[in-house]
């Protein structure tokens, strides 16, 4: 059984301009020891999905209006705030994009780790301190004893993100949600932090949700991938399958925007940007949300009038499009025959 199961999650923002359907019917599951990658551009609802699982969406204006978040057989969306506080940081932990602002500048690293330990575990002050040193050591921070009493501004971005990770894993969570954990870091540090996350996931047997806009990060770390666009899942598949046989035009476009440095021909190719912008999520039309940017949508089909369902095009591979790659190829065969 999956550790986390999200079913038809809908999180809306009630603003003055109207209801923003930030997350509009998202379903997925994560098993222990597995990494689910959620990929998509800014504003596609990937972070709101994560915050909805944690119960951290800003209420108001946001509200979970439908769907379920099943965690180890418990429904998280109906828990009280106090019950959720027991889950957060203990069973499900989260790290964020910007380590420069995610740590409190007025408290030492040690205090920020120890307060988490003391909140969830029945542990003495001395034991918490010892454990905090072990944790800093585990995430690869040199001289952990002296770092414990340092304030965050003394640490580099990469070291701060390591400290954030130490906080997150402090109570041995079963699920770690990493929301763009490497976006704000130097490229060289990015790889180190991703490696660290993978290592820790294996040693702690955690499930992990890795949110990113970077297909390269997905390729490196994810087992399963969810591609989100405009609040919906547009494609879902195991990572190898997705990279080998991308079906949705959006996924294809994302992969096309990735530099290919392995083969000689790719080096001279221009990177292709995706034209246009995602649709406004206030009262989106009953249509394929990618239609306006889709190179395969034409006036003759129903893309502009009909919302495609998420369908299983191959076992374990789901796509929400009327023009998946494999069917386009099929069509072409028909025409030439």
């Amino acid at each position, binding site marked *: 059984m999956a550790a986390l199961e999200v079913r038809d999650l809908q999180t809306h923002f009630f603003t003055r301009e109207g209801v923003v359907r930030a997350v509009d019917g998202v379903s997925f599951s994560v098993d222990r020891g597995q990494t689910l990658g959620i990929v998509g551009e800014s504003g596609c609802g990937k972070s709101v999905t994560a915050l909805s699982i*944690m119960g*951290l969406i800003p209420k108001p204006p946001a509200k979970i209006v439908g769907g379920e978040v099943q965690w180890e057989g418990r429904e998280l969306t109906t828990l009280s*705030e106090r019950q*959720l*506080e*027991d*889950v*957060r*940081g*203990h069973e499900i*932990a*989260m790290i*964020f994009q*910007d380590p420069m*602002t*995610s*740590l*409190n*500048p*007025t*408290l030492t690293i040690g205090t920020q780790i120890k*307060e*988490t330990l003391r*909140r*969830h575990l029945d542990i003495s002050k001395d034991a918490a301190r010892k454990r905090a040193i072990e944790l800093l050591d585990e995430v690869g921070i040199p001289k952990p004893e002296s770092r414990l009493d340092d*304030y965050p*501004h003394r640490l580099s971005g990469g070291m701060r993100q390591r400290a*954030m990770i130490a*906080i997150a894993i402090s109570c041995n969570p079963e699920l770690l949600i990493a929301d763009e954990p490497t976006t704000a870091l130097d490229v060289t540090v990015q790889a180190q932090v991703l490696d660290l996350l993978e290592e820790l996931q294996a040693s702690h047997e955690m499930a992990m949700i890795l949110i990113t806009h970077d297909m390269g990060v997905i390729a490196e770390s994810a087992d399963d991938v969810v591609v989100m666009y405009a609040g919906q899942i547009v494609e879902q598949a195991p990572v190898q399958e997705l990279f080998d046989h991308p079906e949705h035009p959006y996924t294809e476009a994302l992969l096309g925007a990735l530099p290919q440095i392995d083969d000689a021909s790719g080096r001279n190719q221009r990177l292709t940007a995706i034209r246009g912008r995602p649709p406004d999520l206030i009262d989106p039309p009953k249509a394929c949300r990618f239609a306006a940017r889709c190179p395969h949508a034409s006036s003759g089909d129903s893309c502009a009038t009909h919302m495609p369902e998420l369908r299983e095009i191959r076992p374990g591979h789901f796509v929400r499009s009327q023009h998946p790659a494999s069917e386009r190829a099929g069509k072409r065969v028909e025409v030439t025959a």
Partner: protein
Amino acid sequence: MTAFIVRRLFWTLPVILIVIFFTFVLMRQIEGNPFRTSERNVPESIQQNLEEKFGLNDPWYVQYAKYVKGVFTLDLGPSLVLRGRDVNDIVREHFPESLELGGLAMLFALVVGIPLGMLSALRANSFLDYTAMFFSNVGFAIPSFLVATLLIYFFALQWGDVFGFPTSGWTTWQSKVLPSLALGLGPMAYFARLTRGTMLETLQQDYIRTAKAKGLRWRRIVAVHALRNSLIPVVTAAGPILGFLITGSFIIEQIFAIPGIGRYYVTAVTGRDYSVVMGLTVLLSIIVILANLVVDILYGILDPRTREART
């Protein structure tokens, strides 16, 4: 930290010298003379004698040098108008009242203002928030002499039997309540608004979201993570306000007939009592400088990032 304080104290010396210089120059620019007023028809020879006695006939730089020497030997000189009284006496006798009044007003402003602002921020846009902010707006807008008059009218006269507050004086604790409230209301309203604003801003910070993601209880998030960061701007504002409260309470002292130093200040200016004006100005600037020093020290305690720059 100690080095920082010593260095800061050392730097107050040139500041005080500059204050003395400007007060000295400005006072001499005002028309008139303590001994040549229209009310007193003093023979010319006596005036000459008086001016001679107080050194007013010396060149200005001699007077200035004498005065600076006096300040640094803690002798602020004799009053030119009040016969037989030194500025030191006036300070000794009347400054404690002003200090106490300002201190009590500040205490009221902080103790009520900060929690009120916090509460408003935590219940933002609620009825409580709107009520609190309405009254702090009003409190900020009404001048203190009107507040003082209203307080006297209602709490000392109309319902005087119930509350037992006297209309004036500075003796019993009851007599200190109304003046402190009247003086502290404006700063209290200011602190409440400031705390509300910074608290709301702090609650939006990423590290508050981190604290929530760690599952910390809301009470701890507010008390440990949000409050401390919210207080930094409040502390910054508190320094000059404290100086202002201790020194600028002339109106309140007048209305409540409090024998504080504010009254001497004003009468000294109108009476051209040079030594009193200068003595009090120097005293008050030292207080403002010290208040700012305290702010800087508190700043370092609240925000470790500023601590580094000074060691």
